[in-house]
């Protein structure tokens, strides 16, 4: 029974997607199902997380075929943490979508696809099989294609073409990499691969395979110089969609990089150096990009890239402290970035634009809302003791232990530039006097919404802000979690043991 628990979040999302497809045209049902399902899913995820926290890594073999023959699902601490975060962001965005997505989009399958996307994310985090991971990735990208194009406006389509092409390219490279790996080892189970890849003598070949994975996941994670699709597309769909994209989609890439480079391709100095250089350039390049944007959501998009650097840099340094920093940052970033794009959406709903030059006056009109917005904004900067600060401490420490001045410099540079950017955003959006804009006809301004809709827009932001406050002030708990995850990742034998010790009971 408890072993089954591993798959519950996944099965629940699948169930929700199917139910939502059945209620195709009944959008008010869909809203209710999505939010209630999201809450239920959050409960299940907490349950799973608590269980894993108590009992350590659990695995389940789908189809009851013992590893490495069937598809293994592995719930280690990293995976369940990310599942939990997905559920948190998921439920917030569900509620946000219920109010902010226009009925026309809802009538064309927004909610089913949204839950398919969550399904894909959860599956990707839980799976212990590399080809299965590919399949989950495909679920994620096809759902994201649909969400990004739904509505078919010009900007959306232009962005979608780039998003589509580069993501497909990544998938092809991923598939190629899997093929090579299978050709070398005859296996697809990641724990099994870990053992078999370590035994391969031709290290050059292993390195090339690792590069293929690096590029495939690097595109998804939006690392320099592979991130182009992101600034081209993230600001085009509705904010709720950007929120889930910004919060989780790139993180799947980061997750995959972490998983593959801590489990399968371990201890390759060349690869680590490459990752490190990419991370440093990502920090710089994202920061530079964000500095010059004038569209709020584009600023946030570039900040996503910039901050991906923090996570990758820890992976590049590859010490326990560094990985702990990466994990902490990952946890913080998922919550804050989701929130940030919802904030962008809320501002859009209030003003009818996201152009920084036309925004302003928020402070005078909505003082408490401004304060609320301050939480994600300044958490993002990492003003201590808000959530973004702590992981930087780990990363800087790790950088110093490695005597890696470049890494330290890049981390500090990115922090400073984020600070300046957020100060600018704050000054322009919140402080500046209101800019009189022509009223848009047929636009549902925030002030004209009824109370339920308003709550649906604001409550998710409050919810996620509270969580990021918790991450900041309860940093001890999160740090313990991150350290534990880092410990598990650095010692991949634990993962391997967990995969192979279970599933002893063969088919009846």
């Amino acid at each position, binding site marked *: 029974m408890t072993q089954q628990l591993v798959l519950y979040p996944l099965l629940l999302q699948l169930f929700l997607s199917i139910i939502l497809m059945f209620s195709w045209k009944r959008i008010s049902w869909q809203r209710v199902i999505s939010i209630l399902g999201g809450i239920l899913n959050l409960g299940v995820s907490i349950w799973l997380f608590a269980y894993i926290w108590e009992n350590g890594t659990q695995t389940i073999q789908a189809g009851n075929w013992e590893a490495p023959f069937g598809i293994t699902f592995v719930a280690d601490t990293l995976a369940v943490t990310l599942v939990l975060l997905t559920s948190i962001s998921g439920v917030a965005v569900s509620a946000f979508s219920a109010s902010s997505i226009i009925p026309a989009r809802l009538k064309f399958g927004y909610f089913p696809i949204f839950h398919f996307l969550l399904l894909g994310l959860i599956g990707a985090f839980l799976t212990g099989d590399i080809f299965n991971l590919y399949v989950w990735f495909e679920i994620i990208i096809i759902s994201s294609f649909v969400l990004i*194009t739904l509505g078919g406006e010009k900007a959306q389509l232009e962005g979608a073409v780039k998003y589509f092409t580069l993501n497909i390219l990544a998938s092809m490279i991923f598939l190629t990499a899997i093929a090579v790996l299978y050709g070398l080892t005859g296996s697809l189970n990641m724990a099994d691969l870990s053992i078999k890849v370590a035994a391969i003598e031709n290290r050059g070949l292993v390195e090339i395979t690792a590069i293929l994975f690096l590029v495939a996941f690097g595109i998804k994670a939006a690392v320099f110089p592979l991130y182009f699709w992101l600034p081209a597309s993230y600001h085009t769909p509705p904010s709720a969609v950007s929120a889930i994209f910004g919060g989780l989609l790139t993180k799947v890439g980061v997750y995959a990089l972490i998983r593959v480079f801590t489990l399968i391709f371990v201890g390759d100095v060349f690869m680590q150096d490459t990752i490190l250089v990419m991370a440093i350039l990502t920090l710089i390049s994202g920061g530079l990009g964000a500095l010059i944007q004038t569209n709020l959501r584009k600023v946030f998009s570039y900040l996503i890239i910039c901050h991906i650097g923090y996570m990758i840099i820890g992976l590049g340094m590859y010490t326990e402290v560094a990985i702990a920093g990466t994990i902490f940052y990952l946890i913080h970033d998922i919550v804050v970035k989701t929130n940030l794009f919802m904030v962008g959406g809320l501002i859009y709903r209030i003003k009818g634009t996201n152009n920084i030059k036309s925004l302003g006056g928020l402070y005078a009109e909505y003082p408490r809302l401004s304060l609320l917005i301050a939480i994600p904004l300044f958490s993002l900067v990492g003003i201590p003791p808000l959530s973004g600060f702590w992981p930087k401490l780990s990363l800087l420490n790790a950088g110093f232990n490695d005597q890696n001045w470049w890494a330290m410099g890049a981390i500090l540079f990115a922090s400073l530039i984020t600070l300046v950017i957020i100060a600018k955003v704050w000054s322009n959006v919140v402080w500046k006097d209101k800019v009189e804009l022509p009223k848009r006809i047929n636009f549902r301004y925030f002030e004209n919404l009824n109370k339920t809709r308003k709550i649906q827009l604001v409550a998710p932001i409050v919810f996620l802000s509270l969580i990021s406050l918790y991450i900041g002030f309860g940093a001890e708990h999160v740090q313990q979690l991150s350290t534990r995850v880092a410990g598990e990742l650095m010692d991949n034998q634990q993962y391997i043991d967990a995969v192979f010790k279970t599933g002893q009971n063969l088919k009846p």
Partner: protein
Amino acid sequence: MLIAILLGFLFSLLLVFTGKFFKGKPGIISAAIPLVLFGYFLQFIPEISAGGTIVHSYSWVPSFGVNLDFTLDGLSLLFSLMITGIGFLVFVYTAAYLKNHKYLDRFYGYLSMFMAAMLGLVLSDNLITLFVFWELTSISSFFLIGFNNSNPESRKSAITALAITGLGGLSLLAGALVLGSVGGSYSIDELMNSSGEIAASPYYILIAILIFGAAFTKSAQFPFHFWLPGAMKAPTPVSTYLHSATMVKAGIYLLMRMTPVLGNQEFWNSTLIIVGSITMVYAAIHTLFRTDLKGILAYSTISALGILVFLIGQGTEAALLAAAVFIVVHALYKATLFLVTGIIDHQTLSRDVTILRGLRKVMLPVAIAGFLAAISSAGIPPTIGFLGKELTYESTLALVGTPLLWIALILITKILLLHAGFVAGISPFIGQLPERFEKTKKPGILLWGPPIILSVAGIVFGVFPGIIEGSLIKPVVAAMGQDAGDQHLQLWHGFNTVLWLSVATIVIGTVLYFTIKPSQKLVKMVTRVEYISPESIISGFWSLFNKFSSLWTRIFQNGYLRNYVSTILVFLIGLTGYVLYNTANFSMDFSTLSEITVYEIVVVTILLIAVFFVVFTRSRLAAVASMGVMGLAICLIFVFYSAPDLAMTQFSIDTLTVILFVLVLYRLPRYLKLSDYKTRIRDGVLALSFGSIITILILEVLAQPVNMEISEYYAQNAYLLAHGKNVVNVILVDFRGSDTFMEISVLAIAAIGVFGLLKLRLKKTDQR
């Protein structure tokens, strides 16, 4: 003690929800908080002056070694009393100053948040905790400078201040981390014990530079000083509290705190002396060229901070004593002058010293406060300012090396500061009251009370230095690891060099005051050389940096999809090529390869021809048809190599794809020959190198041994356990059923997407 610190934060949080109540009259109630805290800290004086320290420790994030360890010793006590004492007066003053401001509640919120942060800063024994509070002071300062948020100048200054202090904050963070790693702890108390090891470590210079970076930016040292005059855009209570009495002293506090850990080293001392002296002279000269009262005060504050840095740099017992006294001196007179300026501004709506005259007639108490502060600033006995100045000269005279130079510099600074103090504190009140100010309303007691209290304190402490000597000043020196036991604060030291220097200062300064009057002409003079000021240089650098950012971003994010693809491929090819080049060891075992038959060659040829057509044909229809042929050829390959299921699927999917294409394509335009010859060659080379890498990779992998363990398990158990004979199908629906499940989900999602893309048309009339 935790509660004492949190009180301010809790109050500002409370204000978010009960703000309405504190707008208007009841606002003054909030002043109770600093008053209570002031009382709380006063009670520690006996214990501290007896040489004790009070330590409170709370666990927070032990995993990082970050704890809320608070230590109250002489140094932190002095600062705490200043923070809460001046805080109280500023809170009271604010109640009148911003009486009808619609955001008074927010102002109190930020102010009490700042106070709490500042208290946390000076009480923290843990470097990281100190950093946390340090950043909080920067942020509160950001909100306070930008408080007049409609004013673009105000917003700009807030950002500049945040950027500069943020830079310093990061420097502090890095410094704290390195120091923590080298010294083995973040606890300042423990670090003091290992100061020898730290000084001997190769990172000493780095640590010192990083700490300097923090202190110099926060305490507005040259060349980072320019944010402070900008910060004067904040309402005057803020300038009083943050930008003269407390926050800018955080850098000074840090240097003093670090003196027992890092001090007494050549690098430490000389850097501080040099930077401090440059700052004090540079800023003092600048005061001559201002006509705005707050501008004058801002530069004189910078200059005073320079003096403090200069004194800390000297590092001797006498110098530290002088610094401790001067902190008190400066806090008292400068806060007074700012408050006075605020009153003038508030009542007359002007801060221009060239037109303010004779105000004593309308605001006598204010004039008294201004006068007392000015003479304290000038160091005229019997003010405490005199004590401070005497001590400064005394310690500077004792400097080894070239004392003459330093004496000259400090003398010039003091003279110019005297001038500035007179201009700010005396000149608005003397002379003939201009007509336009005759109707000026008298300020209320809430306004003039605080400056009077502060300025009178300056005289009282000057006459009876014993009040503060043992209780406040000496414990400060003790906290810095020096013993100032035999030094005594007194007005009369006898006829010595120091006295003559004092006399010279007062005489020359007074003469200067009567000869040089602030005027627009002087202001113009300095604007002419503004382009070489650090501010212009840094802002020039900043705009250059912005241009670079645009350039960089435009190069990479240029909007052309094919460039994105090319970049990714070049990256991939570069990396793999590099590895292949380094590790290439071709070994192909030809015996395991299968033979080549005619059929296969025919199929492969057909496939390649089809591909050739797809790539080079000018007709879309031909391309699609060739596509179909290619699919069929692949289908045949699957048939040849024992994959009937694949062949069937490939065939059906190929058919469907062609149908789709035909349905869609005939609405699309003709191909255009869009790229030029060169581009095509370049792309061709790129594509071919990628293709070759793939081929080489395949050949290398094929040369590796095969591992069939898993497929053998499938083959063995497909029928026995999974009841099927078509192993591929058994894998699909059973062994790897989850894959298949997700794959049909992908299909379903794609279908929904297609449906939405084609049917959903957002109209202009749709609700957005």
